[in-house]
């Protein structure tokens, strides 16, 4: 039999989890497609916990509740460093998916093509995991351990995404490449955040998704961008991009195409910001 609980508090959720593993349900947009008429197993529905929703200031940065929907993110007033996240929010499925799907669910589903990951990587996001013993924070890159794999323990809940103050400087841009306009799984996607001072780029954060087991930051390429704004996009070295990525051939594109497209998208995203 299915046990279903939709507690109104995190404490109650954690107490239920302490009795044994349960399937954590947020927006449902990734879990329900694999279900029959009824979702089987013991389900812990997190969507009634008010503390898991919404975007609030925290230590000069921002805290995004894990159950905040894409629509809420898209419609929020956020600094330009999160423009990329808001652009991504409008490209996660269609309107119906954006109204249901949550940022935390997107991370926990851990698809290599998760639209939320590159925009969060470029703002140095951390995840907040809460268990009965307390709360721990992990850099997002450490949380995502592989395709469909995360560092969440079975008795923990991903409660928030934390954006530190140093991630909120500059301007950002997200570009997604797919074979159709809406409702499309990315062939490749990039997120870029640049901080500038006069005619100089003083900070650069670049990430690529759908081209490796988990989305990746591109440290070497980021370093190469520090310097004059002029010609920045041209400084992106395809070999340096390729060195970080490990794309696969699949139904959507070839690996070689993905690598090439990633460089092109990064150049365009940088170009759009400079």
């Amino acid at each position, binding site marked *: 039999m299915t046990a279903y609980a939709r507690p109104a508090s995190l404490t109650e959720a954690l107490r239920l989890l302490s009795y044994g593993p349960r399937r954590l349900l947020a927006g449902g947009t990734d879990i329900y497609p694999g279900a029959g008429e*009824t979702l089987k197993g013991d389900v812990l529905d997190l969507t009634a916990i008010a503390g898991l929703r919404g975007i609030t200031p925290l230590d000069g940065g921002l805290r995004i509740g894990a159950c905040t929907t894409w629509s809420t993110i898209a419609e929020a007033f956020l600094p330009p460093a999160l423009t990329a996240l808001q652009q991504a929010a409008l490209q996660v*499925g269609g*309107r119906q998916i954006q109204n*249901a799907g949550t940022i935390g669910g997107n991370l926990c589903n851990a698809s290599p093509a998760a639209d939320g990951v590159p925009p969060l990587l470029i703002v140095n996001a951390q995840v907040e995991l809460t268990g009965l013993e307390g709360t721990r924070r992990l850099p997002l890159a450490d949380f995502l351990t592989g395709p469909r794999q995360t560092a969440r323990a079975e008795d923990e809940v991903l409660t928030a995404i934390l954006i530190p103050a140093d991630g909120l400087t500059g301007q950002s841009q997200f570009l997604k490449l797919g074979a159709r306009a809406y409702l499309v799984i990315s062939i490749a996607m990039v997120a870029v955040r640049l901080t500038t001072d006069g005619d100089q780029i003083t900070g650069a954060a670049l990430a690529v998704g759908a081209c490796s087991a988990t989305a990746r930051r591109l440290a070497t390429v980021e370093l190469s961008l520090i310097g004059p704004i002029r010609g920045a996009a041209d400084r992106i070295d395809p070999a340096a991009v390729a060195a970080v990525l490990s794309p696969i051939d699949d139904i959507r594109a070839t690996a070689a195409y993905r690598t090439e497209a990633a460089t092109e998208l990064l150049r365009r995203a940088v170009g759009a910001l400079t």
Partner: protein
Amino acid sequence: MIAFTLNGQPVALNAPPTRRLSQMLREDAGLTGTKVGCDAGDCGACTVLVDGHALCACLIPAARVQGAQVQTVEGKSAELTRLRAAFLRHGAAQCGICTPGMLMAAAELLADNPTPTVDQATMALGGVLCRCTGYAKIIAAVCDTSDTDPQPASGPAVGQSLPRIDGAAKVAGDSFGADYAPDGALILRAIRSPHHHASFDFGDLSAFAARPGVACVLTAQDIPGRNIFGVIPPFADQPALAETHARFRGEAVALVAFEHGAEPDLTDFPIRWTPLAPQMDPELAEQPDAPLIHANRPGNRLTQGRVIKGDVTAALAASAHVVEGSIQTSFVEHAYIEPEAGAAWLDGDTLVIRACTQAPVMDRDDTAAILNLAPDRVRIIPSAVGGGFGSKLDISLQPLLGLAVLKTGRPVRMTYSRAESMASTTKRHPAMMRGRIGCDATGKITAVDFDGRFDTGAYASWGPTVANRVPVHATGPYLTPHVRATARAIHTNGPVSGAFRGFGVPQAAIWQETLYDRLAEKAGIDPLELRLRNALRDGDPSATGQILHATGIGDCLTALRPHWQRALAECTVPGRGVGIASCWYGCGNTSLPNPSTIRIGITTAGLVTLHQGATDIGQGSNTVIAQIAADGLGVPINSLHLIGPDTALTPDAGKTSASRQTYVSGRAAHAAAQSLRATILRRANAGDGATISVERSLITVTENGARRVIDLAALPTDAYGYALSAQETYDPPTSPLDENGQGTPYAVYGYGAQMVELAVDAALGTVRLLKITAAHDLGRAINPQLATGQIEGGIAQGIGLALMEEYLPGRTENLHDYLIPTTGDVPPIQSILIEVPDREGPLGAKGLGEHVLIPTAPAILNAIRHATGAIITKVPALPHRVLAAIKDVTT
């Protein structure tokens, strides 16, 4: 109990908490207006509003709406009322299966923004897939909800853009295959092969059948009749349930019927599979040593069609210019938003099957043979059909439902899952086509040499039709003195390839129209002018030697000429391109009988009744045939009462395929209506100019001011139960093709040409469509709005064929890996209706439904080549293929 407010009324439902909200609404609340297309959030058909937010009801646990306001298409709101009226006015609903989802998504938008822009509506509806309309009329309706409804039209019905007769049902949430459940119906599920090729044997079936809630388990051994079906009887080869081994992934091998709510765990159904080496490559399948998929078909060749005229070799040798090329296409999925569904029950000793279908009489006959029943013991009642496009011509669940009903004596219902629908039903044939086209120094075509291999999959289905139709059409609508065209259908262990809007002609047109562009370049002639120079004209012989009449291709190309010249002039930016392609298409069966019969009667109470057996799968035959009949009889269309389709109530109007319903059934309807009119005028001793009006039980015939009255109540009823009636049959005059494919395969052809403007991103290989202009000769536009709806929808499918659709068995059995165009993928479409009347068609009308898809893909490829020089050799032209082709140009 889950307590919430449903369409303004408080309800409390006893549903499992994690049941999908869509299921709770449909099964527990009994509101079937919310449609289920994919159960994965990929299609948006189940969109409802929860506290004002549009959500896919398939992705939400029922318990989550506790205390919430839920609104479905059954609800009432100011937005919905305006939207419904606008959808009807704009012709925004075709089959109607996506309409509830579209309405609800639009209702969310309008609540915040009563007058959205096109861009806002396009984005808001981006999460709802439609396979019929091409979205243009839906977007137009959402952006135009403030108008009041126009006055009802008066005068002749033909030629008017009347709202569809069945439109009110469509905007309310029509009743499709899955939407009727007889009381106490068992649920039926099929066990299907997970392998492309495998033998199997069963374990302890009786133990499984004894599980709680299981009513019965059925296998091929339970089939009382002939366990073989097929749409073309001499080639019938497909079992309703496979007997010892499965020839494709998704083939049904057993059935389980169970009580509603008591689904057993089917993952441990007692079956042992022994996977066998599958043959997935038609090139290898036709090698002499290849294992045979059907023992009686050497070389795995199902059949071959050919058309031979003149001396192609000599003509090409003497040509001033010759181009040679090959191109490959992929499996294409019909992707109607309604998966196969239906219910069946016994009415006395008659087996009644209500399901979605395009071919009720064929369903009846094949199902009866499988179940060993006389055909008149099977009654097929087509439900509203949520898209068909050819695949619902073949039987799917009809014999399975029937078998379970006969075994249990109980009503049974069945709904395919999206994956099951995609895996088990037919596809467009993948084609490998090659050949040459030549012309003389002035650009006159000398010869076409075409060879096509079509992957027909595991069973015959419509493979023979494709093999025969393609050679007839391979020249395109151009005068071609020398022709050698062959097409063969080769079996593989791929999915069954069958009928899909155009029966192979869209694939062949991709080959022929892209080569035409290369020939134009070689000859130094503008691509449109080359086509116009060779366009078939009245009196010209076709490749099959048929002398043609009512040839509209020249008019279509001429109509595009100013647009073409404008677009060429606008191609000043790198990456901009414009491409053109033509089509022609013979309406109805190829050289085979293809009759339709229509009955019209007036009851003693004065009800004018049209028995219309053509299934309307969204294209509009309910409306078009009624328009023709109304004018033929001389009465207002709103005085007609429609019956059917239903094999117990309507004479056979054939199948909805081959663009034949407007032409063939329309012609029969016109004949029946005229016959009834003649009877009435004769009784009134009036001439043909008289007017007829029917009021209550009196017919009043007025001629030159003189009125004569026929009292219907005083007349005896005839064999059909009418005071007066007429029934007429029309069968297109065709002749068989000889061994060289010479003869008259079709009585009527329709013509068209389309022009695509686009921009190619040369660094990413992506294609952005800017505008499509489509000129189609349909003889006579019976209903211009329905006609442009066909054009827009056909173009959307052509866009998919060209740019994104590739069905890979086992890998794309869902609507997020298999991509069809969304609202954002269809550019503005300008339709130009050309009317070159055909003497065979009703009031001159020709078919249109398939023609509209044919030119789109080659016009896109021609525009890509115009923009970049890239020659695409495999469709879909996915970004990585386009980029590779661009690189081939520069290296």
